[in-house]
């Protein structure tokens, strides 16, 4: 035992006396009264009392005992039961005599007998020697590479690897052949398979430096950043939506994704990369390329519409703190939020010190991603527009203000009173916390403000007319208006003063200043506040990127190693504490770390070093021999290259690459995951992730992810077998293939073996035979009777329209129709559609015009429209818009449906042509903000959906039908279809056949048998283990 903190009595006699007192009086009290909850098995409140070291180090609420000072000792406070919130033992107070014993003992200096068997050395700051000695907290060592490995060695990495491996009598694997290597390197650096030409070029390159050239060439390609940025995006839980209930899309998050890709491609030094993300606003506020990096601080889950604003902000700060700990320091700090860490020397205070760096953060939506000069030019132009339009806008505001104000006030009243008060304070008088919380409230009030639609909600028609006129007047000045500037999804500090950062414990609240991990660096950081910022995050960034920071430097080097090998030198890449794994090659980690930092923190040099090693070039195609199976079955010592399954994005991009569809458009706004751009450029909606990527273990973006999982689930298999997206790639691929060999070369980059060729040939032969036999037996003679009706189970079920022009989101459908029946249940009769009936994918975007059945909840014979498109949050939206105009069976009608997507309304107009003088029925029905209605995969179909669906079959006549883009004026319409003269198409039953229209009595003809069999083969190969694994 120690130490200066617990001085023993010098004289032997006195010591003996003290020990006797301790053993006879004190220890029994501790054992009987405290051990149950505070010793080896349980440590409530983080406290043990079975050794003086633990007592002086204390628990969650600080030291339990100050030797010589009972009045300052928490232990005494607790047993006296004077503090209502801090009483030990709980419920039952100790007899006064026992309390007196403890008091006396502490006053004596709390002597504790030497006990060699239970020696606990507690040093300064309350840490044990063992904790201080933990490898991760030691400075990075300059380890000279060992003399090992002989001629196998290509660089220093191999010497470290060889030493450990040889010690266990393991032998290295042979070098991978060039086919294996080229595939590995392309997937590793680009996330894409090599093309046939790229394989050939490398395999046939006679240059002895061919491999080195390949690595350099791939590192220089922009595809490199697109692959490696994904690793970083996983770590920072990047997503493009808020992730709570509404899951609002974050339309300006993508510039951060491009920033990360750019940083990797530019080989930006890691220290700079970290500084920009933590404190770009403080170090280069005027450089938009740096400012965007602070989007790093915007990734927490959020929802604008939460009344508990305080609680939400607290969770956001927790999220930032936890992520920073795991991401940069390799320590899961989360445990220390509520108590000192159970297993690592991370104090609860340390957690709050780290949190203090983030407490001043303010989410900004008022900044733009432009240079000051661009901003100035904008402001000048904007001022001109404002001057010219001031009078008009004053009048417009006067019209809307009373209603908007009352709406805002109703919303405001739902906040607690303190929050309401914050929103009333002028911005320049708010303190930091008021800016933060008030700002979160303002977002809700802004929403209330923006939800007011004057053209619909102004109370009188005069007011509406006046507003409309003013708006038109305002529009005349649009030429003065500057082009809007790109929005900045960034953060800054709320001001130079930080808000309070309280550590709340049972013994009271304590204000926590920023600071680092006590065990590593107990000194307070040097802060340099500016006029607008506390400078805290710059200080944190400086500390994290110090060359001698033993935590952050090892963590990032280990991550790079992990992404290359599939496992880090420390395999728990975000947890280097005692709960994580021990490093397999600590000296190698330190060697690489030293070199990385000395070389300017550059990733590309590190990639090169790793990839050029003999260790990396080993084949994965080696089974464990007897020794390996016994001493290292999981290949921790790298006696082969680790076999790996491709990541979700690699699988998806590889499928597109081999089918020849990959769209390499780089950067910019994100695209739908069902499209053909690289996965990194697809939308990341936390609550509605892409099905395929999710099934292949893409993280959802809620928390920092250091390592991808590789799961095998039946739902994953179902999707690969039955999903449209994979099948579409297979079909596309098959259409280009001339032979089985062709398929193998394209998908796997090699010739099939004889056995594979034979298996594939047999499959194709069998399938072609099957299909032919099946089609022969079901051949149905097609009726030639033209007829004018659309009827189920006839040759004239549906009419497919070929039209290269799309109707867009604003269009008019005009038709002359007669219905013979409606469905006896609730099904619909579909007059015309551009839809396959689906609601789940981009391909299903579309619409249909239908008549309801007898049991419909919209009442029978109601004309309605169904729409599937993109809503304002970039979600897939589906809506039914019912006209409540009911038609009769057997009656001839002139029907006009005008879809005005831009104005969010649909107008239905129906005229009964059989009843002379019948009134025209008309209805204007609002629709949701849906767009891209004509961008699905379906053609326009009369009489049903694009996918043959008997329950949606029209039953009756469609005498004539046309679609006109835009809003067709009344005078352009005509009940006599012969007078129609414009439209995307005009169908008239009486017209002679036209190649633009094709009757269909069934689904479109199946592929020819051979193509269908080839599609099957391609799909199988795209889902095979060989395609999914680098092994």
């Amino acid at each position: 035992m120690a130490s200066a903190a617990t001085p023993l009595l010098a004289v032997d006699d006195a010591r003996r006396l003290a020990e006797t007192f301790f053993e006879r009086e004190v220890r029994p009290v501790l054992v009987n009264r405290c051990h149950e909850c505070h010793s080896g098995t349980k440590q409530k409140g983080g406290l043990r009392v079975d050794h003086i070291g633990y007592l002086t180090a204390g628990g969650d609420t600080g030291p339990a005992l100050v030797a010589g000072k009972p009045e300052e000792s928490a232990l005494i406070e607790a047993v006296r039961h004077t503090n209502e919130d801090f009483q030990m033992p709980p419920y039952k107070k100790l007899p006064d005599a026992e309390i007196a014993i403890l008091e006396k003992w502490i006053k004596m200096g709390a002597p504790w007998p030497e006990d060699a068997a239970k020696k606990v050395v507690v040093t300064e700051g309350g840490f044990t020697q063992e904790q201080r000695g933990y490898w991760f907290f030691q400075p990075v060592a300059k380890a000279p590479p060992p003399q090992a490995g002989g001629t196998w060695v290509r660089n220093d990495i191999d010497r470290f690897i060889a030493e450990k491996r040889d010690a266990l009598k393991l032998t290295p694997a042979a070098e991978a052949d060039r086919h294996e290597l080229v595939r590995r390197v392309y997937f590793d650096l680009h996330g894409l398979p090599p093309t046939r030409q790229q394989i050939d070029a490398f395999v046939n390159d006679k240059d002895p430096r061919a491999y080195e050239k390949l690595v350099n060439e791939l590192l220089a390609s922009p595809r490199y950043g697109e692959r490696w940025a994904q690793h970083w995006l996983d770590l920072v839980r990047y997503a493009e939506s808020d992730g709570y209930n509404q899951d609002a899309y974050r339309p300006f998050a993508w510039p951060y994704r491009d920033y990360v890709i750019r940083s990797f491609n530019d080989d930006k030094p890691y220290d700079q990369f970290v500084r920009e993300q933590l404190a770009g606003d403080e170090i280069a506020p005027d450089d938009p390329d740096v400012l965007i990096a602070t989007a790093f601080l915007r990734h927490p889950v959020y929802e604008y519409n939460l009344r508990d604003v305080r609680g939400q902000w607290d969770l956001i700060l927790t999220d930032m703190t936890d992520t920073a700990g795991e991401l940069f320091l390799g320590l899961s700090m989360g445990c220390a939020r509520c108590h000192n860490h159970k297993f690592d020397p991370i104090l609860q205070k340390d957690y709050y010190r780290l949190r203090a760096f983030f407490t001043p953060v303010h989410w900004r939506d008022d900044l733009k991603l432009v240079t000051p000069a661009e901003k100035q030019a904008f402001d000048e132009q904007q001022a001109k527009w404002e001057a010219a339009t001031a009078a008009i806008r004053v009048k417009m505001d006067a019209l809307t203000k009373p209603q908007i104000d009352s709406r805002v006030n109703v919303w405001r009243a739902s906040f607690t009173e303190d929050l309401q008060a914050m929103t009333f304070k002028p911005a320049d008088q708010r303190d930091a916390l008021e800016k933060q919380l008030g700002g979160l409230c303002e977002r809700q009030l802004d929403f209330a403000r923006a939800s007011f639609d004057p053209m619909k909600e102004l109370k009188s028609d005069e007011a509406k007319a006046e507003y409309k006129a003013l708006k038109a007047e305002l529009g005349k000045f649009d030429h003065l208006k500057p082009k809007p500037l790109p929005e900045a999804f960034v953060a800054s500090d709320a001001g130079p003063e930080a808000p309070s950062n309280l550590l709340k414990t049972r013994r009271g609240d304590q204000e926590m200043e920023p600071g680092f991990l006590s065990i590593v660096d107990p000194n307070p950081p040097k802060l340099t506040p500016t006029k607008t910022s506390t400078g805290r995050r710059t200080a944190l960034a400086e500390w994290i990127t110090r060359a001698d920071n033993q935590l952050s430097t090892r963590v990032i080097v280990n991550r790079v190693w992990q992404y290359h090998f599939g496992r880090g030198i420390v395999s728990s890449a975000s947890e280097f504490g005692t709960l994580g794994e021990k490093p397999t090659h600590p000296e190698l980690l330190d060697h690489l770390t030293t070199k990385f930092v000395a070389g300017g923190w550059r990733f590309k040099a590190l990639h090169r070093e790793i990839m050029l090693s003999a260790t990396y070039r080993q084949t994965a195609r080696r089974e464990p021999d007897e020794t390996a199976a016994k001493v290292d079955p999981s290949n921790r010592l790298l006696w082969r290259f680790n076999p790996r399954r491709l990541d979700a994005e690699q699988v998806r991009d590889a499928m597109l690459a081999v089918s020849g569809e990959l769209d390499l458009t780089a950067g910019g706004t994100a695209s739908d995951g069902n499209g053909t751009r690289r996965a990194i450029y697809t939308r990341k909606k936390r609550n509605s992730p892409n099905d395929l990527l999710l099934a292949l273990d893409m993280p959802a973006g809620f928390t920092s992810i250091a390592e991808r999982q590789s799961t095998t689930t039946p739902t994953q298999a179902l999707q690969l077998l039955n999903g449209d997206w994979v099948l579409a790639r297979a079909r596309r691929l098959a259409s280009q293939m001339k032979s089985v060999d062709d398929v193998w070369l394209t998908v796997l980059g090699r010739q099939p073996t004889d056995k594979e060729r034979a298996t594939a040939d047999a499959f194709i032969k069998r399938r072609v035979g099957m299909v032919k036999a099946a089609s022969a037996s079901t051949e149905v003679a097609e009726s030639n009777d033209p007829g004018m009706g659309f009827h189920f189970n006839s040759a004239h079920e549906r009419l497919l329209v070929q039209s290269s022009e799309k109707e867009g989101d604003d269009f008019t459908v005009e038709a002359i129709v007669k219905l013979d029946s409606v469905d006896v249940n609730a099904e619909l009769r579909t007059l015309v559609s551009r839809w396959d009936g689906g609601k789940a994918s981009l391909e299903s975007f579309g619409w249909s015009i239908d008549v309801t059945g007898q049991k419909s909840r919209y009442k029978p014979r109601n004309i309605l429209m169904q729409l599937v498109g993109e809503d304002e949050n970039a979600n897939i939206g589906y809506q039914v818009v019912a006209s409540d105009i009911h038609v009769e069976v057997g009656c001839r009608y002139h029907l006009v449906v005008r879809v005005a997507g831009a104005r969010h309304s649909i107008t239905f107009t129906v005229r009964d042509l059989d009843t002379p003088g019948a009134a025209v029925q008309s209805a204007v029905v609002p629709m949701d903000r849906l767009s891209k209605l004509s961008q699905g995969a379906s053609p326009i179909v009369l009489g049903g959906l694009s996918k043959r669906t008997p329950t949606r079959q029209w039953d009756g006549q469609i005498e004539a039908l046309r679609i006109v883009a835009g809003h067709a004026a009344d005078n352009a319409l005509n009940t006599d279809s012969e007078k129609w003269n414009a439209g995307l198409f005009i169908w008239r039953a009486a017209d002679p056949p036209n190649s633009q229209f094709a009757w269909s009595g069934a689904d479109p003809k199946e592929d020819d048998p051979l193509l269908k069999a080839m599609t099957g083969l391609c799909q199988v190969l795209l889902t095979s283990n060989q395609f999914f694994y680098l092994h």
Partner: protein
Amino acid sequence: MPCHRYDRPASRREFLQTAGGGFGAVALAALMGEQTQAAPFRLPQRAARAKSVIFLFMEGGPSHLDTFDYKPLLNKLAGQSLPASFKTPLTAAGEAKSPLLECKRTWKQHGQGGLWISDWFPHVAGHADDLAVIRSCASSGINHAGGVCSMNTGSLFGGRPSLGAWASYGLGTENRNLPAFVVIKDSEATVVNGVRNWGAGFMPAVYQGVEFHSDGTPIKYLDNPKGVDRREQRDKLDLLGALDRDFNASRASNTELEARIRGFELAYQMQAEAPGAVDLSGETALTKKLYGMDHAETATFGRNCLLARRLVESGVRFVQLYSGAGSKWDSHDGIEAKHSKLCHSVDKPIAGLLTDLKARGLLDETLVIWGGEFGRTPMSEKGDGRDHNPTGFTLWMAGGGVQGGQAYGSTDDLGLYAVEDRLHVHDIHATILHLLGIDHTRLIYHHMGRPERIDQNEGHPYTKLLGA
């Protein structure tokens, strides 16, 4: 609240290595109905009767004050403000100061235990002696997103595994051809937060809930692609199997490869078996009637309840049925009309389920849970509605070994705060696992170095439910 002690965890890697290398193997073990650990977390056999769970989730927050928690004082004080002796609650719509709203229901005591149940649940009341009504539930989520996420995962925000995922992680499935965790909604509407309510969070995807559609194709991607029959599917799988086996032969150390072949075969089996699990044509008219399937208002939930019984019979571990998907139980105004309709739509189906389970001897091993993400306030909103109340609300359980016929815990005299035996969501989760025979403090999943538990180290099982 302080953490409890947990054993120094064995490393996840070590576990994976002993499990055969890689998540593929773990996932497979779960699929095959094998437990993924040596079950150090099992409680002694006597504690556990429940093998499966049917969680009837009334989404939007059903009013405990008008159903299972009788508060005569509420009607006495109706129209007045909350008495000053009550702490002012933080509510979603800010209705702390609105006048108290009377309960218009007629209350009676039911069963031998004399449980108070309102006239909104006449059929369920017939099972009063099976019901363990917990009147002292509490949650941290004041709005739907936080509340539903909390009741399902224990956390206000996404990212953690759901209760069903923990149950499947702990116990695996008993039918490898069906998912262990199935979710069925009563409409096409989206449950607040979407699929992450039954997500696996940081656990492997194999533990996530699979959504079944109550008619048509039960699982997404279950049907063969258009124009592909079962024979062609078989041919494709045979080809895939042949190529994969060839490839795997010289790579036997990589167990994921073999797991993948079996994954595809299971998918094929599931294609054959899942439609049968939702095919009700074999059920008698009497059974359907029992569940209320003969009346339009009760047909949808009745059908789902019957499906739940069939799934549990087929070995599915955890079934969650949503009533009012898309927060339809939410009743900030017009609670009379809204709740009348919804209570009616679930009352007979739930009673039918309990009757049917009992008749088949399944009730003892099936834990049926009824509740929502929170209850409703005694204060009114908009004159005739009630705001969210997460500080005190009711859940009930039946079957699975719980002692029925009585109420547990209580709220204050106006039903605003839980006062006696308060059970936070974490405690509720710990209790449900306890009833499944799991010591929740030992059911640990290692994530980012942290030993994670369902209750974030804060819950205690409420063993009184077992009569203990």
